[in-house]
C-alpha cells in the first residue's frame, strides 16, 4: 500500500515536471495578444476587489498589533518602516499569491477540467492545435505580467491601511510616515518581493493548468482537480517562499 502510494506520488511528480517543460516549450508560435486579453483581464481587474480588501485589512491589523507591542519599548514611531519592510518583502507577495491561488488556480483548473471531460482539449489536438500553446502559454504570460503588478498594488494598499491606523492613534503626519518608510525600506526589499511574485505567478498558473489538463472522471473529477490545484499551489508557494527568502536574505 505504501509502495503503491509512493509510486503514484513519484509518477505525479514526473508527470508534473514534464507538463511544466512542455508548457514553456509551447510558447512559440507566440499566442496572439487578443487571445491573452481575457486572461489579463481575469487575473488583474477581476482580482482587484479581493486584493484591495485583504491588503487593506492586513495593513490595518498589523499596524494595531505593532503599535500595541512597540509602545512597551517606546518605539511605536517606527511602525511605518516595520510594516513597509514586512509587507514588501513577505506579506504582500505571499498574501496576494495565496488569494490568487484560490481565485486563479481554481478557475483555470475548473475551466481546463471541463474542457478535458467534454473533449474540447481532444478537439484542439485533432485540429493540430497544441493545447498547451492555446490554453496554458497565454495564461503563463498574463500571470507573469499581472501578478507582480497586483503585488505592488497590494503592498501600497497595505501600507496605506497601516497609515490609517497609525495616523489616527499616533497622530503622525503622512510625510513623516513616508519618511520613516523611506528610511527603513530598501530597493532590495521591493525587488525581492517582485521576484517572488513572479515565481508565485508561474506556480499559480502552472498548477491550476496541470490539474485541469489531467482531469478524469466527470464533474467529480473537475471538483477534485479544483481543490487539488488550490491546495498544491498554496503549498508550493510557501515552499518557494522559503527558498527565495533564503536566497535573498540567507
Amino acid at each position, binding site marked *: 500500500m505504501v509502495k503503491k502510494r509512493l509510486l503514484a506520488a513519484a509518477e505525479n511528480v514526473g508527470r508534473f515536471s514534464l507538463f511544466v517543460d512542455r508548457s514553456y516549450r509551447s510558447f512559440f508560435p507566440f499566442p496572439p495578444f487578443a487571445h491573452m486579453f481575457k486572461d489579463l483581464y481575469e487575473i488583474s481587474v477581476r482580482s482587484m476587489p479581493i486584493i484591495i480588501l485583504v491588503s487593506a485589512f492586513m495593513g490595518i491589523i498589523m499596524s494595531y498589533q505593532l503599535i500595541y507591542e512597540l509602545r512597551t519599548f517606546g518605539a511605536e514611531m517606527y511602525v511605518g518602516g516595520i510594516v513597509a519592510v514586512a509587507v514588501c518583502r513577505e506579506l504582500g507577495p505571499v498574501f496576494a499569491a495565496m488569494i490568487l491561488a484560490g481565485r486563479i488556480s481554481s478557475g483555470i483548473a475548473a475551466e481546463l477540467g471541463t474542457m478535458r471531460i467534454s473533449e474540447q482539449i481532444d*478537439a484542439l489536438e485533432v485540429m*493540430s492545435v497544441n493545447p498547451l500553446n492555446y490554453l496554458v502559454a497565454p495564461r503563463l504570460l498574463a500571470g507573469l505580467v499581472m501578478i507582480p503588478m497586483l503585488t505592488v498594488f497590494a503592498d501600497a494598499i497595505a501600507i496605506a491601511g497601516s497609515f490609517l491606523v497609525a495616523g489616527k492613534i499616533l497622530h503622525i503626519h503622512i510625510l513623516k510616515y513616508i519618511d520613516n518608510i523611506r528610511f527603513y525600506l530598501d530597493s532590495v526589499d521591493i525587488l525581492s518581493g517582485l521576484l517572488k511574485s513572479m515565481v508565485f505567478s508561474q506556480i499559480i498558473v502552472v498548477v491550476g493548468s496541470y490539474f485541469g489538463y489531467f482531469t478524469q472522471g466527470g464533474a467529480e473529477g473537475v471538483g477534485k482537480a479544483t481543490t487539488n490545484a488550490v491546495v498544491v499551489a498554496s503549498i508550493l508557494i510557501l515552499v518557494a517562499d522559503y527558498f527565495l527568502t533564503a536566497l535573498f536574505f540567507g
Partner: protein
Amino acid sequence: MIEIRDLHKSFNGKDVLKGVSLTIEDGKVTTIIGQSGCGKSVLLKHVVGLHEPDRGEVAVNGEVLAHMDEEARRRCRSRFSYLFQGGALFDSLTVWENVVFPLVWEGGRHHHYDKKKLQKKAAETLELVGMAHVESMKPSELSGGMKKRAALARAIVHNPEYILYDEPTTGLDPVMSAVIDDLILTLNKELGLTSVVVTHDMQSVSRVSDEVCMLYDGQIVFNGSVTRMRQEKNPVLQQFIQRKNKGPILFGQ
C-alpha cells in the same frame, strides 16, 4: 486508406482492444457497431492519434502514425475531422468562431483573416447543415441537436479527406437523426469524403453504411456490407442487430 493493424489497448489493466485489424477504404462510409463501452470510441481515437496503442499500429495511406514526427503528424491530422460525441464546441467562443476555428488555426498556427469573410464562411457552412441565424450564439445556448450540427459544420469547414463521427445520432430525435444521416451521405457522395461512423443506431447503420464492422470483446467479429450483415449467422451480430436481450452478449458485459 486507413489501415489498423493488430491494435491492442488497455486502461488500468483492463483490455479494451485485443488485436483489432481493419482496413477503411477511401470514399466509403464504414460504420463500427458494438455495445456501449466496448471500445468503439477508443478505436476511433487511435485513428487520429489521440490514444497511443500498447501494441499494433495505424497507418494512413501507408504512413504509420506512430512513426511520424510532429510536423508530419500535424499535416496528417489536417486531412482529418472528428465529430465528437457531445460536439466538443469551445464554450468560450461563439458558434461562428467555433465553425471557422480550423481555418483560423490551420496547421496549428494562428492566421489573421478578415472577420467579415470568416463570418460569411461560417454562415455558409452552417447553412449546409441546416442552421441559420445562430452565428453569434454561444454553444451553451444551443440544443443537443444544434450543437452536433454546429460541430459538423466545424468538421467540414476546411474540406477534410476523412471524417470520423463518434455517435453522431445518439441523443437526437428521429427526424434530426435522419438529417444527420443525410448529411453524412451527402458529404460522402458529393464531396467524396471517407467517413468512419461509430454508432449503435441500427437504422442509421442501414441507411449510411457501405461497410459495417462489429467490435465485440475487443475484437472485430464481423466486417462486410449491410446485406451480408443481415445474412451472417454470427449469433453475437444477430443478437445485436435484432435487438434481442437473450444470446451470447450478456447484460452488463
